[in-house]
């Protein structure tokens, strides 16, 4: 099983949209390696012919009637926005 180095931690941090100080990266890598070592335990079990379980209850596609119903009011949906303008969520400029 591949083990993690600092470069990979930086790659994963970018995927997760997180940043860490150099010091935190070292500690984080240690913790992740320790946990991944422990997780290797799962390879003691042969699962070649085992079906994966993603959900424990036998629920398949759940559908409902396609009826228009009242939903959250615009003001309510925007009420927690850190910044909003003209009934829209405002974020830093995306396109120069």
């Amino acid at each position: 099983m591949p083990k993690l180095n600092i470069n990979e931690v930086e790659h994963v941090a970018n995927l997760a949209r997180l940043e860490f100080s150099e010091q935190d990266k070292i500690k984080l890598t240690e913790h992740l390696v320790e946990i991944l070592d422990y997780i290797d335990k799962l390879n003691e079990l042969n699962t070649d012919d085992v079906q994966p379980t993603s959900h424990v209850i036998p629920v398949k596609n759940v559908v409902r009637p396609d009826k228009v119903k009242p939903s959250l009011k615009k003001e309510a949906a925007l009420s927690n926005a850190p910044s909003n303008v003209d009934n829209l969520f405002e974020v830093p400029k995306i396109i120069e």
Partner: protein
Amino acid sequence: MELCHLAAHDIHHLLVKREVSSVEVTESVFRQIDKVEDTINSYIMLDRVKALNKASEVDKKISAGEKIPHLAGIPMAIKDNMCTNGLLTTCGSNILNNYIPPYDATVVKKLREQDVVIIGKANMDEFAMGSSTETSYFGITRNPWDTNTVPGGSSGGSVTATTAGEAICALGSDTGGSIRQPASLCSVVGLKPTYGRVSRYGLVAFASSLDQIGPITKDVTDSALLLNAISGRDEMDSTSVDLPVPDYTKSLINDIKGIKIGIPEEYFVDDGMDPEVNQKVRDAIDLLSKLGAECEDVSLPTTEYGIADYQIISRAEASSNLARFDGTRYGYRAENAESLMNMYKKTRSEGFGPEVKLRIMLGTYALSTGYYDAYYLKAQKVRTLIKNDFDKAFEKFDVLVTPTSPTTAFKIGEKTDDPLTMYLSDIFTVNCNMAGIPGISIPCGFSSSGLPIGLQILGKPFDEETIFRVSYTFEQNTDYHSKRPNI
């Protein structure tokens, strides 16, 4: 005894007979809060004014001769990962430190329909990620039985509020033991219902295939009453199951003759288990036998793989669920971001605490290109094996009985620098979530130093009734549940 230490069903009778008022009960609870909250820190926020208004509203209904529901006028704590319309909901995190939900979680809506008095929002590990209530942005919660120890977690505040009389009962959530383990460490009754029994709508998601909301109460009767109130299919949660909800109080039967109880040998280990816990749980099993249950050993061979498997499944789901916290629509946003990407990264890095970041990192890694099969798919297959173990055991047994936690409450700070050791405190509770089955923790004794010990009873899917019957019988023949901490 002060009103705040009574169970909800006792208070209900007093209310109906007009021997006390809901305002008196609510005031008693707030007096207790004033006395102990500085030490215990059960709550992230309290809502005194609305609580007393609701109590007085219920009193008026009683005076007018209205028939009130069982939980009407009962002061309750709600774990702070359940959305409460107009009331701060932080999930114990800086990233939601200002979040006021514009809607109620379905469970909260159902409690409001019963005229429950909501006292406040209970402290918890950040995003329910922890086993000790030490990772909350709003400070640690202390165990009322020994304030140098942790209450367990992540529903620590809900549990301490209930045991210390800062609420009559509470709602918690359980992803890998977060109701049962703190219930065990604080001597209250904590139930994780079958996955799909209770709607998760409005519960801030941690690991969606494992999360379930459940009651935290002073006794089994209250647990049944509260489960009655919150169960059932909800069109807002497609994983809530459309099965009839029985009246769980009908299962409060003091008789377990002929009930077949399996004792999983893997839950009684020498390594890492407190001998006093082992002994008290053995004593409890002896009592269940004396009361007429047929107890027999059983093997659940995949038990020891539960924590490793849970690491992958829960972290993978969490990394995906927590992607929504990016400073755009709600919650905390970092200042002075130079770009959108920079805003996401700064917001998340400043908003999440270390344990949450560690879990997001592990989950992201397990789902990332090249590692999916080795980790996530493998974990899902092992999950099948864990579930198969239970399916097989339940062909023969009605319930399984185990310790809830391998130890009593540990010291504050003891495990905070060692994540893996902390994770192992859930070793006896996680597999219940992995298999989706119901499980309860009930008080079964105290250690020589006076710390509570809990008995876990696991049942078949959607058979909370047998769990209640066994729990109730045990409770009726012991008095551990009636002991309160000296605080």
